[in-house]
């Protein structure tokens, strides 16, 4: 079959950031009516390539051709007008505006200069119903879950007359049925001849939806392949430049522990967030929390960390009854919490890697007892190399780091506190295979060293691989607590999540 002419062609793209060569001579093309996956580890240059394409950044070298004509977009808006729409990794909408306003922002239907609100709401509802989403479009966007917000962002991008649609990790916060829904929409768009650039860390999804893929590594092009001609193992090998053996090394399920109880929650709950639950975490034990998005996983973590006030129940840490009124109090009891929402609840983007890493330790010491600079440098360089944070420059602003490296910075911040309980909320979300394996191995090592870990993840395989015990949540309720022995499988877990009863 003859290939149609590419709608988009990028040649020899180069982009330099202070201290980092983000892209170096990268070629990329998009054919009409295909789903093209852009693959690579964190920091490989995927997001930079997308931002260069959409006019967020200028390019230092190379050229971009759209429909055969050379283009240089000065802004995302210019790219959008040329028919390139983007949905970014983390929802980039105005949470305080209504759903309809978000969809039509900047291009509201007008008559005589006045915005036609009714028309706008009608069209928004129609658009969303085509994506099979039935919500009140006049409600504020913030009143909906992250997943719905993501779909609204996609609806907005689809509605703008796009010829090229860029989806930068749209699925990282969607559950399985929502992903299926998204894929249906993507296939429909594909039939209309729209070229879709798709970024995802879920290999299964790539193989389900993508026709072709381009692989990047360390800002350089590895190659372009047809999905049908490249096996998953080959793909991962090309992405990380080493063998997949890393992922397999964690085989052998961890055994349940007979150690003293560290954290005992009894009837702990908060109305509207999570129903009272009872959960015991032992020293050196990894407890996994499984459940769908919005089932109350994060809420459990926030109560154990004092991020929210518990409305009922008691909490004992190391046998001592504690009332955690603030995260500060929890930290004093050696509890640490990595939020799933890195950007809003984790990092301070304007500060450097070093400052972000020492932040919690400094906060614990108080401002009158600064950590000597030499000690800071020691701690930071130790964890930068131990966790393989790239670029390995402690004075780089943390906002210049890729998602996976930001996650490692968060981990480093808590690890230097040497907590007794480490709560990890989706620590591997949106990060690549290599970094994922590193984090999983780290969790196993920490628990061997006696640290208790509460591990929250949407990926059941991951939960099963790491946990000694799995708590299952459903509709804001802890419905089951299952020891992770030989009989527990992902299918059994899925069953429990779906039915709400331990099988």
């Amino acid at each position, binding site marked *: 079959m003859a290939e149609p002419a590419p709608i988009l062609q990028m040649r020899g793209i180069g982009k330099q950031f202070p201290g980092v060569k983000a892209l170096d001579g990268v070629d990329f093309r998009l054919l009409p009516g295909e789903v093209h996956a852009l693959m690579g580890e964190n920091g490989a240059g995927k*997001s930079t390539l997308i931002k260069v394409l959409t006019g967020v950044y200028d390019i230092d070298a190379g050229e971009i051709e759209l429909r055969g004509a050379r283009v240089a977009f000065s802004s995302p808006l210019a790219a959008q007008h040329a028919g390139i729409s983007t949905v970014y990794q983390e929802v980039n909408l105005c949470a305080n505006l209504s759903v309809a306003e978000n969809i039509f922002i900047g291009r509201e239907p007008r008559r005589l200069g006045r915005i036609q609100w009714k028309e706008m709401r009608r069209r928004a509802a129609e658009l969303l119903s085509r994506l099979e989403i039935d919500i009140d479009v006049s409600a504020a966007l913030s009143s909906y879950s992250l997943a719905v917000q993501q779909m609204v962002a996609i609806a907005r991008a689809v509605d703008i007359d796009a010829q090229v649609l860029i989806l930068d990790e749209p699925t990282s916060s969607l559950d399985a049925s929502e992903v299926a829904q998204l894929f249906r929409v993507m296939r429909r768009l594909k039939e209309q001849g729209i070229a879709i650039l798709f970024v995802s860390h879920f290999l299964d999804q790539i193989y389900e939806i993508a026709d072709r893929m381009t692989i990047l590594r360390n800002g350089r092009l590895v190659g372009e392949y047809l999905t049908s001609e490249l096996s998953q193992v080959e793909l991962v090998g090309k992405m990380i430049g080493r063998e997949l053996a890393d992922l397999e090394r964690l085989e052998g399920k961890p055994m349940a522990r007979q150690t003293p109880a560290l954290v005992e929650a009894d009837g702990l709950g908060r109305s509207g967030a999570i129903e009272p639950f009872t959960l015991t975490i032992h020293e050196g034990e990894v407890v996994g929390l499984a459940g769908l998005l919005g089932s109350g996983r994060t809420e459990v973590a926030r109560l154990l960390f004092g991020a929210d006030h518990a409305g009922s129940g008691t909490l004992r840490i190391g046998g001592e009854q504690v009332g955690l009124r603030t995260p500060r109090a929890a930290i004093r009891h050696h509890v640490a919490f990595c939020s799933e929402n890195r950007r809003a609840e984790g990092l301070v983007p304007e500060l450097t890697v070093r400052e972000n890493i020492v932040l919690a330790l400094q906060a614990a010491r108080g401002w009158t007892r600064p950590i000597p600079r030499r000690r800071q440098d020691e701690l930071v360089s130790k964890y930068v190399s131990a966790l393989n944070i790239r670029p390995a420059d402690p004075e780089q602003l943390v906002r210049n780091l890729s998602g996976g490296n930001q996650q490692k910075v968060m981990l480093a911040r808590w690890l230097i506190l040497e907590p007794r309980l480490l709560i990890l909320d989706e620590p591997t979300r949106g990060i690549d295979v290599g970094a994922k394996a590193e984090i999983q191995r780290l969790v196993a090592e920490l628990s061997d060293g006696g640290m208790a870990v509460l591990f929250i993840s949407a990926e059941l395989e991951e939960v099963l691989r790491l946990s000694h015990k799995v708590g299952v949540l459903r509709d804001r309720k802890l419905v089951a607590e299952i020891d992770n022995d030989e009989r527990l499988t992902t299918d059994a877990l899925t069953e429990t999540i779906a039915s709400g009863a331990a099988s």
Partner: protein
Amino acid sequence: MTAFLGPFLRHRLFWPVVILVGLLLLNLVFTDNFFHVEMKDDHLYGSLIDIFRFGAPLILVSLGMTLVIATSGIDLSVGSVVAISGALACLQISDLGNQNSVGGVLSAVGVALLLSLVLGAWNGLLVAGVGIQPIIATLILMVAGRGLAQLITQGQIITINSSPYKLIGGGYWLTVPFGIIIVIAVLALTAFLTRRLALGLLIESVGGNAEASRLAGIGSRAVIITVYTFCALCAGIAGLMISSNVSSADGNNAGLWIELDAILAVVIGGTPLSGGRFSLGGTVLGALIIQTLTTTIYSIGVPPQTTLLFKALVVTIVCLLQSPAFRAKVFHRRRRPAGAPPVAEEKVRVSA
């Protein structure tokens, strides 16, 4: 050449310095001997010294304001605190049997500064404890504070004649105007607290991302109360200086609009109003620019009725020059792909 100058051009304080030097050179054209500093009666004299001396209160207020703005707050009440502190000190001194008694003046100064601390803590409590937006919370004291100052002076201008008190704003110590010494001391103290100790890191963290800071275990409430209290203390000292310089307290006009000049100084100095990173050096430069501008207006003989307009124009130009986005637009218009101004990317998150 460009490569050699690169690091200087990109330095954060490059443009404030250029603007300050430009203003000073402008003065040189209009005033003979503008840069001349001489010793008269064992005191340093000269236009440059005057800029420092008269700018001292503004520098102080701006230093406090810098920390408040770094937590992404703002303090509109500093002008009122200036008036209250000066009024209270002068009232107490005027009640002294011997206005020249050092002990009496010291206690008056102490009480005035103590009240400033209380007022600052009040602001901090409203912002951090009650959760009122900073601009509203400090607006309360901005308005009510003027009334409080007039209550203290009973609507009169209190005039005093106290040589120890005169020292603060109008005196000299080791040939240097005393006000300048106070400014240097407060600047050193602020730099010590924020950069040597860890207060600066915590302030920047709270201003950069309040929720993340809370979850990292920072007692942001205490940090915020501390900066508002510190800001009011700076304003209190500035109030003493201003009233001491004229040996009187005017509840109505002392420190009027100084909050706006201070905010401007902070912004010119490169600290964003959205909070986060702050620059003490930048703020001092910013305050000096504003004071130099005021001096310039007098020395080049702008008609009094147009001074405010003139000042507004210059400030607009200064702010535009300070803005990386504006400079990129004007100076790099045709060189976009090659020139790739790094400044335009500053607000964009990279997540490759």
